[in-house]
């Protein structure tokens, strides 16, 4: 083991498309949860008023559907970028199939989830892009939101005139009816909320502990790695 200095180098991790995706996703999810909760259980707002002059519930649903479209297209854009972008954005990072990623996964589970203080710290354990546990959680999240999109558009399909929502019409007979599909759509929302809590907490935890710019990386795109790590790689390449 080399002696560790406290000198860092700046790496460009998240490209502009990744960051745009992240924040569009963030806004869309907040909008979808807020409007979705209102759809699920509308509060008795303005109940004294006449129907003629208000349409707030219709507007709320409109925002939900519009945000649903943005959310979906944004996801398509991210999938596309996983074939175009840099190595941290690549689709491969989401699958824990390589030995390296599995090793990293066990490291993260021990060190960051179970909070053990491990003796043998090696650079390869410290992730630059997503760590293996995080990226795997995004894979599960991806499946979850695909289900959310499928159930959402299936419910929407009946009123749609465009072919795109109709692509999902088969979901309703698959689950036997709208009622169950709506309940699933509602339950998946809670998984999305739980994912978000864990996600935000862990980002803050890593930022606090490691001081490598975890939180700000999603704004500016940069993270920091130890100088030695870059030097070793240089030596290897020479």
């Amino acid at each position: 083991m080399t002696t560790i200095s406290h000198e860092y180098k700046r790496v460009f991790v998240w490209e502009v498309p990744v960051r745009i995706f992240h924040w569009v996703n963030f806004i869309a999810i907040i909008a979808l949860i807020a409007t979705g909760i209102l759809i699920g259980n509308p509060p008795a707002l303005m109940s004294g008023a006449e129907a003629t002059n208000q349409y707030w519930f219709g507007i709320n649903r409109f925002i939900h559907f519009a945000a649903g479209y943005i959310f979906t297209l944004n996801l398509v854009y991210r999938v596309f970028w996983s074939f175009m972008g840099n190595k941290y954005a690549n689709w491969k990072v989401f699958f824990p199939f390589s030995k390296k990623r599995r090793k990293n996964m066990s490291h993260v589970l021990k060190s960051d989830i179970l909070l053990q203080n491990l003796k043998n710290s090696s650079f390869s354990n410290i992730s630059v892009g997503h760590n293996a546990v995080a990226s795997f959680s995004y894979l599960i999240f991806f499946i979850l939101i695909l289900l959310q999109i499928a159930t959402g558009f299936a419910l929407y399909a009946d009123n749609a005139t465009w072919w795109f929502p109709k692509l999902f019409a088969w979901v309703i007979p698959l689950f036997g009816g709208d009622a169950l599909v709506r309940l699933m759509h509602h339950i998946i929302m809670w998984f999305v909320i739980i994912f978000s809590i864990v996600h935000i907490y862990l980002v803050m935890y890593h930022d606090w502990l490691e001081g490598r710019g975890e939180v700000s990386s999603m704004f500016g795109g940069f993270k920091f790695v130890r100088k030695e790590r870059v030097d070793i790689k240089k030596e290897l390449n020479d």
Partner: protein
Amino acid sequence: MSTTEKKQDTYYESIIKNGFSRRDFIKFTAFMAAYLGYETSAVAQIATALKTTPRLPIIWEHYQECTCCSESFIRTNHPIVADIILDKVSLDYTLTLMAASGHQAEAAKKATMDKYKGEYILAVEGSVPMGEDGIYCCIAGKTALQQLQEAAAGAKAIIAWGSCASSGCVQSAKPNPTGATPIHKIITDKPIIRVPGCPPIGEVMAGVIVHVIAFGKLPELDRQGRPKAFYAKRVHDSCYRRPYFDAGLFVEEFDDESAKKGHCLYKVGCKGPVTYNSCGSIKWNNGVSYPIQSGHGCFGCSEDNFWDNGPIYERLTNVPGFGIEANADKVGMVAAGVVAGAAAGHAIASTMSKRKEHKGRVDSGKDIEKQVD
């Protein structure tokens, strides 16, 4: 009933013989074409078909059911339906309405099955019990399953009337003690049309039969085997209270001010948003009213397994396995709370466990601090 007839009357002939005028007949065809959602040119097509086709033999079976489908059918708002389609001409066998009983009735059925093999329509009201070898429902010494298989063998097509025959209805609600099973899960080699509802609307039933008579085939079906003309739209999307939904004006309790004003019943459990049927447009009892118009939410009787789809007077369904009072939101809130608590616990634990590691960084950061101005 009429299996002994020699020459068969066409529908038109029997209608005239029964004292209706030609004018009544044309009105009836126009009325049917409208319900089926056809343009006016179809009126002539239906009229021609009824003038030229001899009666369509129908065997109407009753298994595990309450006969509300038959009741609904004989209350369709055009007398020709009850008088001609049902009474006089078509039904060769129907336990409820036929004059014959016992051996005679069974003989009439057998005669129709032999004589019109491959031509008759089998209409089924009720589900078939599959538990205990089907002994929960026996007719003329045979189980409903045997009866169904025999009758289905020579049928041209099968109409599954009502929620019992098309999805099992209340008998198949959990825990389904008799193993009640809908028709399409038993007979798989015949065209089957599902006409769900508890009961289905009489006009819908008449529309289906008239379509089969007039066009010689089943009407266009959706993915779930239901006639598109009647089940393509949600009750919610044809509901006259919909403007209140969009305005966010909801009944909170059945005796509140909003209930008096006729606001939307969404929050008192209306299943209109998840139910496909024509109640909002055709209505019931000669178009007088339908549940929502009478101040009660739709309870989704035409949806599969509607008895197990959650409480009638509440919006959000209970989550299975979490006890009676646990709806999805309560479970979700508790789960989110637990997870947030775990995160907080993790945060506290990490300040202790990672104390040294963190302190090293803070110290070196402080050193640097001294080196900058």
